[in-house]
């Protein structure tokens, strides 16, 4: 469908005198208004049509019952119409054939009778001819016949003179020319035609004509015509027609009704199954279908219930496993941490006393302590992530001043930044940003992000930006280091993933930091996203709702930094 909204070439409407410039302007305005209204009306109509069609299509697609009902109606309707037509035409043909046979029979007898009556008619004068004709016609009418009511016309012709006698005068006028032609040429003929009755109403009529043979060998010819009105047959046919139509419609509706009923019998259990399945999916694992009888639907219900049983069993099993996992986490936590504490304390005591040791032993004590720290960090991260896996992580939200938190993180990371010759720049709004968050987790996220930025920042400044809108707060951590490819960006939150495996580890994270940060952000209902470009650095963005349990729709800060190139000189310092 193509729609033309561009204005048509302006065609002048009515007389448009060029001397009056105001009137055309007026006209144009009115015309434009009308056109606009027409366009609007068309659009409305189109919208309405589309809506109705759309609704019908949706119903068609969504309801099996409607579909089967409609298809049954079309199929049954077609069959009924064809059967009715065949039936009706057969009955009509039969009726007419019977009538016609009887009529022809009567006409032949009439011809024989007329032959005896008009013998020697040619010898008489005009008056005697007329009376002989009239008498014959009356006789024929009085004889009656098996073919019902009829009218008779006799035609007597010698040369140019033609006389007629009839039981009803208008019948002769209605005789069609071709019928007369056929009779004239000496054969019997029959024809259906409309002949007016006594009320001058045209009636379907069977006309039969035959020449009456005369023994006089002159130029005289006698023709006999019968007219059998078909009003009774008409009546019967109309009765039959209405009967066929009514029974056809009734039959169609009946078949459609059966179709819908049968569908309902099948569809209802299916709908019940769908409802049960939905409730199951919502977590009501004890939902089952009622099994009735032993038919296919009962089998459906039985196998459905078997599926639900197995589902429930497996889910319960999984829940059990999850509890086991939580328990395991907790046990490992205790069992590993206690000896680690002892080892770490011992290492510390050794480390403090290393001045009394020979150099190699002293160095060993140093290495022991350093590696124990790493081990501890790794263990802490592992336990944290397994706590998330077990679904045991809980949010401890309270109102927190994010500005102060960011400043604290920046201050805490200052020493590390200094070792990497990086500066940390904090950009925060003038007003306080108070959000209901788990301060411990948010601080952990930011420490991770900043640590990460310092590690990959190539000694360039790290920018931490805080911003808030009415529903959400966001912190971005930007570095201007080697950056990330889009492939890196997809994997940066993966566990134990490293951008470049061959690179030397300087900060020595566990490889779980960003994974945990992502889980921490999700626990808040927040987002943790990354942008990066090779050579242009990377930017991580944490967005959290201001209120606990709030939903995020947008972030106050863009993920992709406005300036991709490195700033000349950072302004503020923490």
């Amino acid at each position, binding site marked *: 469908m193509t729609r033309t909204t561009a204005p048509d070439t302006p065609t002048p409407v009515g007389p448009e005198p060029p001397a009056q410039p105001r009137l055309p302007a007026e006209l144009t305005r009115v015309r434009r208004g009308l056109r606009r209204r027409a366009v609007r009306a068309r659009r409305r109509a189109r919208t309405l049509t589309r809506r109705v069609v759309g609704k019908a299509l949706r119903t068609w697609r969504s309801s099996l019952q409607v579909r089967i009902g409609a298809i049954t109606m079309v199929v049954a309707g077609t069959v009924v119409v064809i059967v009715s037509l065949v039936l009706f035409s057969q009955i009509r043909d039969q009726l007419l054939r019977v009538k016609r046979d009887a009529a022809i029979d009567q006409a032949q007898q009439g011809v024989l009778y007329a032959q005896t009556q008009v013998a020697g008619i040619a010898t008489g004068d005009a008056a005697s001819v007329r009376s002989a004709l009239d008498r014959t016609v009356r006789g024929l009418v009085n004889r009656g016949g098996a073919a019902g009511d009829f009218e008779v016309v006799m035609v007597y012709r010698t040369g140019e003179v033609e006389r007629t006698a009839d039981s009803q005068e208008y019948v002769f006028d209605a005789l069609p020319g071709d019928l007369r032609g056929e009779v004239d040429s000496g054969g019997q003929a029959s024809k259906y035609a409309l002949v007016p009755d006594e009320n001058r109403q045209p009636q379907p009529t069977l006309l039969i004509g035959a020449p009456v043979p005369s023994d006089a060998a002159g130029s005289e010819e006698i023709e006999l015509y019968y007219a059998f009105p078909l009003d009774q047959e008409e009546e019967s046919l109309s009765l039959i027609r209405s009967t066929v139509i009514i029974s056809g419609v009734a039959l169609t509706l009946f078949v459609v009704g059966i179709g819908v009923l049968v569908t309902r019998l099948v569809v209802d259990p299916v709908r019940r199954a769908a409802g049960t399945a939905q409730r199951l999916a919502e977590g009501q694992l004890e939902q089952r279908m009622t099994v009735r009888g032993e038919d296919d639907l009962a089998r459906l219900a039985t196998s459905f219930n078997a599926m639900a049983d197995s589902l429930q069993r497996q889910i319960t099993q999984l829940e059990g496993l999850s509890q086991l996992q939580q328990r395991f986490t907790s046990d490992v936590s205790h069992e590993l941490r206690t000896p680690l504490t002892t080892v770490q304390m011992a290492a510390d005591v050794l480390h403090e006393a290393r001045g009394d040791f020979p150099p190699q032993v002293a160095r060993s004590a140093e290495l022991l302590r350093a590696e124990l720290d790493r081990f501890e960090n790794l263990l802490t991260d592992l336990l944290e992530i397994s706590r998330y896996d077990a679904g045991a992580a809980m949010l401890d939200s309270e*109102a927190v001043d994010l500005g102060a938190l960011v400043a*604290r993180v920046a201050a805490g990371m200052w020493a590390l930044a200094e070792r990497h010759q990086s500066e940390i720049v904090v950009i925060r709004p003038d007003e306080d940003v108070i959000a209901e968050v788990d*301060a411990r987790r948010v*601080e952990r996220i930011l420490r991770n992000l900043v640590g990460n930025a310092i590690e990959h920042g190539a000694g360039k400044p790290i920018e931490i930006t805080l911003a808030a809108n009415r529903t959400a707060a966001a912190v971005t951590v930007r570095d201007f280091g080697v950056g990330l490819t889009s492939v890196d960006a997809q994997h940066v939150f993966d566990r134990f993933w490293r951008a470049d495996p061959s690179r030397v580890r300087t900060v020595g994270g566990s490889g779980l930091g960003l994974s945990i940060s992502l889980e921490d952000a999700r626990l808040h209902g927040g987002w943790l996203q990354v942008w990066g470009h090779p050579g242009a650095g990377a930017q991580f963005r944490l967005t959290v709702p201001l209120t606990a349990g709030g939903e995020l729709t947008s972030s106050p800060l863009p993920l992709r930094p406005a300036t991709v190139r490195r700033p000349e000189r950072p302004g503020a310092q923490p």
Partner: protein
Amino acid sequence: MVVVPPTAPQNGPSRGRVLVVDDDAALAEMLGIVLRREGYEPAFVSDGNRAVGVFQQTRPDLVLLDLMLPGRNGLQICQDIRTQSTVPIVMLTAKGDTIDVVQGLEAGADDYVTKPFKPVELVARVRAQLRRGETGQAENLSIGDVQIDVPAHQVTRDGVPIALTPLEFDLLVALARKPRQVFTRELLLEQVWGYRHAADTRLVNVHVQRLRAKIEQDPEKPEVVLTVRGVGYKAGPP
């Protein structure tokens, strides 16, 4: 942060008795070594059932309590000791989870250390707890209708004494000394618990709640220790 002197007196006068309640023999021994190096006199009990009895015998100045013990649960021991004494209790916990820590603090512990910890951390905690009550010049403070006699370590409302643990007392005094100042949780951690960097604000939250339960007329509508949303706490009007 509390500075640990590098050379600790090994055989000098005891700086305090510390009862170590822990079932892990190696850790208990290691704790003993570290505590002795710092000049404390350790006592040990490994069975939870005997813990309260040993506590009564040794009368320690501080208890180091492992939360997971065979026999009796550490939480129960903590509650039992609290009914008899206001001695500082520092929990050793393997679980950093909120519930475990909060349960321990609610059972009466003053502070906690999460395993694995470093000796310096532990000693700082122990020292901070033992230092309580050492300061004291004649000083009387009041918040609302609550009177605080600092050197006598006594808190009264309308002449009726209210029993507070030393930690709760210190928390209240810290707030009362600067009535107009809003204390962030981090500041309170530093002043009351002696923390500098390790910021676990749950310590503050739980102890403020316990303090409120004791000194507020209606803990739901506090008048002595007020919450400043998004920042921290401050003392009510005097």
